[in-house]
C-alpha cells in the first residue's frame, strides 16, 4: 500500500475498493464536514455583525428617546447637551450637501479616468494609472483631511471667493455681506471627500465599461466613427447603469466619511446652506467631535445618530449595488 503514489499513500484517504464513482457534492469524510461547517460558520459571522449593529445601536440609543421622540430627533436641527436638545435633521441635510458637492467633483473626474484607462491610455501608462487609483484608495482618510486642511484649503478659498463673486445668482453660492470667511466650509470638505471617492467610482465604472462587447466598439470604428463617437454611442450607453451605480456607491462612501470632514469643517449643529462659507454640519463629524466630552443621554444620542447614518448609507449602498448589477441583465437580452 505504501508504494501507492500521491494522495493514495495517505492512510487517511478512504480508498474505495468497490470503485463506485464518488459524487463531488457527497460529504463523506469527517474532514470535509468540518471544512464545510467552518466555512459556513465564518460566512455567518458577517451576518451576525450586521444584525448586531442594528440591535445594539437601537438598544443603546434608547436613552435619548426618553428625552426626545424619534421623530423629533430626526427632524429637529439643534444639538445642545446643556439644555438636553438633540436633533440631527439639519445634520443629515448637511451630510448630504457635503456628499453631493463631493459627488459633483468626483463623478466627472472618475468617469474620465475610467475612460482614460480603458480607451485612451497606452498600454504601459494603463498599469501606472491603475496603481495611482489603487494607491489613492489606500490612503487613510486622516491623511486626506490633513492635506485638505493644510494644503488644499488655503488654495481652495480663492476659488470659493471667485465662485461667490461670479455665480451668486445661484442661492447655494451666496455668502453673507461683509468679509466672509471661505475656510473650513462645506465646499472644501466636499472637495476633499470628492477626491477620496474618485477611486471607488473609477474602479466600479471601469469594470462595467470593460465588459462592453468588443465587436460593438470595433463595429462603430469600422463604420468610420471617431473614438469619441464610439464612446458616446457604445461605451457610455452600455455602461450607463454601471456609472450611475458607481456614483451612488461613491455617494454612500461620502456620506459616511468622518475624519476628513471633521478635521476640515468648523462644526455647526445644523445645515449651512451657504456652502462656500465657514461652518457646516455632518452626522459623522458630530459623533467624533462630541464623543470625548459627551456622557449619559448625549452619548446615547450619538449612538442614535450613528444608527441613522448607518441606515442611510445602507440604503444608498443597497440601491447602488442593484443598479450596478442591472447592466449585465439589460445587455444579456440583446
Amino acid at each position, binding site marked *: 500500500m505504501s508504494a501507492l503514489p500521491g*494522495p493514495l499513500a495517505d492512510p487517511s484517504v478512504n480508498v474505495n475498493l468497490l470503485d463506485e464513482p464518488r459524487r463531488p457534492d457527497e460529504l463523506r469524510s469527517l474532514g470535509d464536514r468540518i471544512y464545510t461547517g467552518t466555512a459556513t460558520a*465564518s460566512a455567518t459571522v458577517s451576518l451576525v455583525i450586521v444584525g448586531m449593529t442594528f440591535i445594539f445601536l437601537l438598544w443603546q440609543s434608547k436613552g435619548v428617546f426618553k428625552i426626545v421622540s424619534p421623530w423629533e430627533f430626526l427632524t429637529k436641527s439643534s444639538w445642545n447637551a446643556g439644555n438636553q436638545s438633540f436633533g440631527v435633521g439639519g445634520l443629515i441635510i448637511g451630510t448630504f450637501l457635503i456628499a453631493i458637492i463631493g459627488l459633483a467633483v468626483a463623478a466627472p473626474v472618475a468617469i474620465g479616468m475610467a475612460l482614460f484607462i480603458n480607451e485612451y491610455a497606452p498600454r504601459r501608462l494603463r498599469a501606472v494609472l491603475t496603481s495611482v487609483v489603487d494607491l489613492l484608495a489606500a490612503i487613510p*482618510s486622516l491623511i486626506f483631511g490633513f492635506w485638505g486642511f493644510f494644503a488644499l484649503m488655503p488654495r481652495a478659498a*480663492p*476659488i470659493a471667493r471667485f465662485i461667490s463673486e461670479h455665480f451668486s445668482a445661484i442661492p447655494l453660492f451666496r455668502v453673507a455681506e461683509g468679509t466672509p470667511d471661505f475656510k473650513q466650509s462645506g465646499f472644501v470638505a466636499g472637495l476633499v471627500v470628492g477626491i477620496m471617492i474618485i477611486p471607488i467610482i473609477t474602479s466600479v465604472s471601469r469594470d462595467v465599461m470593460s465588459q462592453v462587447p468588443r465587436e460593438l466598439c470595433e463595429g462603430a470604428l469600422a463604420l468610420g466613427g471617431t473614438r469619441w463617437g464610439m464612446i458616446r454611442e457604445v461605451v457610455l450607453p452600455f455602461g450607463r447603469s454601471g456609472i450611475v451605480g458607481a456614483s451612488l456607491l461613491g455617494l454612500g462612501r461620502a456620506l459616511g466619511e468622518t475624519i476628513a470632514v471633521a478635521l476640515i469643517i468648523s462644526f455647526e449643529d445644523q445645515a449651512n446652506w451657504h456652502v462656500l462659507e465657514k461652518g457646516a454640519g455632518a452626522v459623522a463629524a458630530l*459623533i467624533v467631535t462630541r464623543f470625548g466630552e459627551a456622557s449619559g443621554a448625549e452619548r446615547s444620542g450619538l449612538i442614535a445618530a450613528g444608527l441613522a447614518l448607518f441606515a442611510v448609507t445602507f440604503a444608498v449602498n443597497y440601491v447602488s449595488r442593484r443598479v450596478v448589477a442591472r447592466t449585465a441583465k439589460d445587455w444579456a437580452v440583446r
Partner: protein
Amino acid sequence: MSSYDDAVVGVPDLEVLASEQYDEFVASHADVDPDNDQPRRFQKITAATALEGSLSIAGGLAIALLMRTLLHWQGLMSTFVFAYVATLVLGTVLLRSVYGMLAARDRVMTSLIWSVGLLACCLLAWLLGFVLLKGVSKLSWTFFVDDLGKTSALNKGGGMRHAIIGTVQQVGIATIASVPIAVMTAVYLNEVQGRIAPLVRFIIDAMSGLPSVVAGLLVYAIWILSLGNGFSGFACSMALVILMLPTVTRTAEEILRTVPGHLREASLALGATRWRTVSRVVLPTARSGLLTAVILGIARAAGETAPAALTAFGSSTTNVNPFTEPQANLPLTVYQLIRSGNKQQLERAYAGACVLILLVLVAFTLARIISIRGEKTRR
C-alpha cells in the same frame, strides 16, 4: 442629428457617390488622397496637431491673462481654470473650421480625458509630496523611542512610541482575528457555494460601505456600554476586524475566482476530498493574491481614526497592555494633536502623518511586488 449620423464620419450617401457630386465630395476632403488612403490612427501627433494644440493653448492663456488684468482676479487658480476652459473652447472653434464638428469634438474630448488622467496623477503627487516633505524634517530618533507622557504640549521633544506600539498591537490582533474568517468566508462564497451565499455576498457588500465611525460605535455599544468593559486597544481591534472583514473577503473572493477550474477538477478526479482540494490546490495557487489582500486590509486598518476615537480613546503615555486602559494609536494621536491646535503639537502631527503614509506606501509597494511575482510564477 440622429445617433447613427454622429458615429459615422465622412462616409457619403450612395446616391451622392453615384452622382457628379462625388468630385465635390473629394474636393471637400482634400486631405484624403484616394490613391493612398491610410488607415486613421489614434494618438498620432503630427506637425499639424502640435501646431493646432499650441495655438489654442496660447490663445486660451492670452484670453485668461487679459481677463485677469481687466477684472483684477487674485490667485493663480481661477486664471488657470479659465485659461484651460478658454483653450478648449478655442480649440473646438479652430478644429471645427478646419476638420468639421465631429473631428473637433473627438479631439477636444481626447485632450479633456488626457487632462483628467494628468490631474489625478498631479493630485496624488501633491498629496504624497506635501505630507512627506512636511513631515520628514520633523522626524528624529526620539520620535520613535519616547512618548508624550512627560513632555508638556508646548515644549520640544517627546515622541510617539506609545502610538506606534498601539497601532502594531491593535492591527496585529485585528489581522489574526479577521484573516482566517475572511478567507474562509471567501472559500464559502466561491468553493462551497452554500445556500446562504447570495445573502452573505449582499451583507459583505453592505459592510464594505459601512462608515468606519459606525463600526466604532457598534463596539462601543456592545463591548463598553452593554458588557461594561473600559476603553482599550482590544476594543479598537474588534472595530478594525469589522472593517477588515469585508475588504479582505471581497479581494480574496475575487482571487479565488481566478484559480482555473481545471485544477479543482483534476484534484477531485484524482479522488481528493473537497477539503484537500481547497487546502492543497486552490489556496496554494491563490497564495500570493491572498497575501496581497491581507496586506491591503492591514494598510486600511492601520489608517482608521474614527473607530479608534470611540474604542481605544487615546492616551499620551505608553500602555503595552492592549486589554486594559485606554491606548493610543498613530492616526488617532495625529488627529488629537491637530485638534489641540498649538504649534509644537502640530509639528508632531506632521511627523506622525509622515510615518503613517510611509507605512501605507510600504504596504502598497509590498502588495504590488508580491502580486506581480505571484503572476510570474503561475505562468
